[in-house]
């Protein structure tokens, strides 16, 4: 059985990286970056996820089929998020065939920022 056995040292390196990134995400939340706070937080989370998946979960040494399963999960999650959010972000009280002059305030609360 060709199973890859990683070095224990590697696990510790990844662990300390994860701790550092956690510290970073926590502290950077106290810096006002406006809408970029959320983007930075997500980028850090994704980085941590990639580290956990690649090294702790051995994706780096896994069969292509396993990586396909991971891709599929992310792909379909993205579809669910994108099309659902797409609906909410394109809601308007003014339909394309109406002129906005004849329609009063939209009922949907404006998206902040």
């Amino acid at each position, binding site marked *: *059985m060709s199973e890859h056995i990683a070095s224990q040292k590697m*696990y510790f390196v990844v662990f300390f990286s994860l701790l550092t990134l956690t510290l970073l995400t*926590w502290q950077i*939340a106290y810096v006002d970056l406006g809408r970029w706070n959320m983007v930075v937080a997500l980028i850090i989370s994704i980085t*941590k996820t990639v580290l956990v*998946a690649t090294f702790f979960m051995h994706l780096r040494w896994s069969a292509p089929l396993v990586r396909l399963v991971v891709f599929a999960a992310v792909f379909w999650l993205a579809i*669910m*998020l994108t099309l659902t959010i797409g609906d*909410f972000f394109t809601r308007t009280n003014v339909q394309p065939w109406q002129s906005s002059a004849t329609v009063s305030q939209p009922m949907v609360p404006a998206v*902040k920022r």
Partner: protein
Amino acid sequence: MHNSQAVVAEQFDDRTQQHEAASLGMWIFLATEVMFFGALFTGYTIYRNLYTMAFEAGSHLLNARIGAFNTAVLIGSSLTMALAVHAAQTGMRKRLMAFLASTMVLGGIFLYIKFAIEWVHDYRDGIVPGLHFTYSGPQASHVAMFFCFYFIMTGVHALHMIIGEGVMAVLLIMAWRGEFSRESHNHIEMFGLYWHFIDIIWIFLFPLLYLLGAHF
């Protein structure tokens, strides 16, 4: 010494096939978990964008320091779990048991902090929708929505951890009885994947729930 793991189940031709099947099966299960939690993340995203101010106000009421500490604890438990898998791969029974036990302890610390400290305080502070919600600031109902998602998402996450603790107890006993070997330790490896996945979910929950608008 009882070693049931050494037997290849009769539907499989050899140990390699059995290992590959187990691995593929567990990863597919994790894919289902991605979609299960994903539905919650979808709802969270919609409401966070509709009620940004209220969600930030709600997030403020959570203790980010405790959340960060718990994140470190969980990441630590991922480390010990990875080391447990390593011990199983190298046939080191005592070390395997030690790392499994450590993972259980760290997971237990996380759950204790989550339930006995955070949730109890939240209840006392009156920010538990449906049970005890007395927040009277602006957009209270939208703040309640934030806390709905907070309790549901961390609750479902915690439920997965509790199940994990149960499975680890069983694995610990099996390890003690010498049922795992260098050649045959699928259960440890597959459970490791599950445990790391739970860590990944928390890696997203922490900033999304605890760190919104922290720069107020």
